[in-house]
């Protein structure tokens, strides 16, 4: 069977995404972050041709531009002055400082877009159920109630509308009052109903002893291999970072921007880590070709 990135065990998927975010926050260097962002964009392209990223592109670009623009406004520190507006110095250091932060935030939001796609609520609930079972039940119930409450709100507003009460008309004060009146009806309605839910849980012996469960996700050999591989890369990167590599010191004295040989070694480890979904995809393609050629 061809392994897809989505098919890995949720624990691994979660570990991968948290690892990427950690790395993006640790390595504050423009060159490294640009390449990391490109890899993340590539992941999105391979996954769905930027379909999902498009919806978030405005937020990503806007926050990036804002951070880059605002940094030199507030920060005049630095030795290399690019230009002067009025009596305000725009320094290279300030621009770089802003770009590093902007790149890091843009990359983090972009990887979250992929996270939301791959790490479905289903998988997150599975992880919670292993670590915090009681909290997982609560979260599951809440997620189940949200669509129910929405439907009930529609019912309530239909009834209220027939009585001439609506959130759409009247002045500000009236709107707010009517809006919360809906919610109040919803509370009474739902709390009465909730007792039935609870009693039916009790009728099914909720909370009485251990239960057997069906696990949709199984930890397979390939998950263990993936964990070892990615875990090794993460430790390698963290150790390198603790030795002070992979970060551009801007203040008090700016380091030269190009990466040194050692830093490239470290950065490549990070790139391979982030590119894991691409590696999986590439491996799948290769396997497919081999299978075809064997037929």
């Amino acid at each position, binding site marked *: 069977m061809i392994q897809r990135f989505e098919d890995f065990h949720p624990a691994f998927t979660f570990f991968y995404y948290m690892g990427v975010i950690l790395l993006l926050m640790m390595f504050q260097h423009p060159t490294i972050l640009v390449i990391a962002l490109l890899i993340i964009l590539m992941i999105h392209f391979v996954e769905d041709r930027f379909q999902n990223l498009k919806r978030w592109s405005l937020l990503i670009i806007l926050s990036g531009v804002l951070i880059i623009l605002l*940094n030199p406004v507030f920060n005049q520190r630095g030795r290399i002055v690019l230009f002067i507006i009025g009596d305000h110095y725009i320094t290279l250091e*300030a621009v770089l400082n802003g770009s590093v*932060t902007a790149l890091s935030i843009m990359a983090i939001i972009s990887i979250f877009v992929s996270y939301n796609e791959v790490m479905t609520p289903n998988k997150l609930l599975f992880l919670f159920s292993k670590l915090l079972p009681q909290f997982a039940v609560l979260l599951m119930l809440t*997620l189940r*109630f949200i669509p129910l409450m929405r439907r009930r709100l529609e019912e309530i507003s239909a009834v209220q509308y027939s009585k001439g009460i609506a959130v759409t008309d009247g002045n500000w004060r009236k709107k707010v009052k009517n809006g919360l009146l809906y919610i109040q009806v919803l509370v009474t309605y739902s709390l009465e109903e909730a007792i039935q839910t*609870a009693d039916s849980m009790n009728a099914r012996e909720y909370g009485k002893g251990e239960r057997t469960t069906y696990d949709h996700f199984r930890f397979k050999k390939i998950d263990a291999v993936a964990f070892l591989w990615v875990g090794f890369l993460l430790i390698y990167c963290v150790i390198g970072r603790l030795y002070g590599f992979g970060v551009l010191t801007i203040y008090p004295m700016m380091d030269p921007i190009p990466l040194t040989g050692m830093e490239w070694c470290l950065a490549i480890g990070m790139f391979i880590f982030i590119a894991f979904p691409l590696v999986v995809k590439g491996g799948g393609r290769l396997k497919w070709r081999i299978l075809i050629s064997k037929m």
Partner: protein
Amino acid sequence: MGGAVGKSLKMRVLQLLLLLGVVGILASTLVWSEHYLWLSFGIVILAIIIFLLHFERRKIVAREIVLLAVMAAIASVSRIPFAAIPSVQPTTFVIMMAGFVFGKESGFIIGVVSALASNMILGQGPWTPWQMIAWGLVGFSAGLLRNWSVMKGTIGKVGFAIIWGFLFGWIMNIWGLLALTGGGTGEGGLLDPQVLIPYFISSALFDSMHAVSNVVFLLLFGGVWVKLLERFKMKYGLLEYK
């Protein structure tokens, strides 16, 4: 039963270890003052986990858990009728009321779950842990202060609602500022008044809208809601009325 006691002890130890982790992170900020961004994330996430473990240790009956879920779901859904009015949402008010009536632990858990669940629908982001802790603390502090004589009166409650309107915004500002400055200190950094003051002023409009709407909700509906929730608590022998 032996298993249950052993499990509870294990959780207690785990909680203690996590607490040490928080202290460790706090101590390391003294050395690595340039890394506030990810150190603060560590603290927020560990703090949430410590509370969740505490919740896990409590033996909870079906009626309590369903009640908590209903309140959390209502807190997240209650934004819908207000979609037309910018920066007015009763989520904070609902969580506050739940804290007043059901106590600090229930208030905290309702806040945390409603933030997490609504982001599961709207999309998670780096802001999720901050929203969880902010709304969690709204519920927690409401439960903590509910027996204080000042809080029994209207003025105390109004003050509380105003404070949380701003405090909520400020907690979210921490995340915004960390994103903006990269968590560095010094000039142009996190604590530079030249950055700090304009940022907080620009958020003040939204924060005061939040505070005003909290107060309006409280004055119009506070009394009714407390009575309503108290009635359910008593009627069904829920949480504390055992």
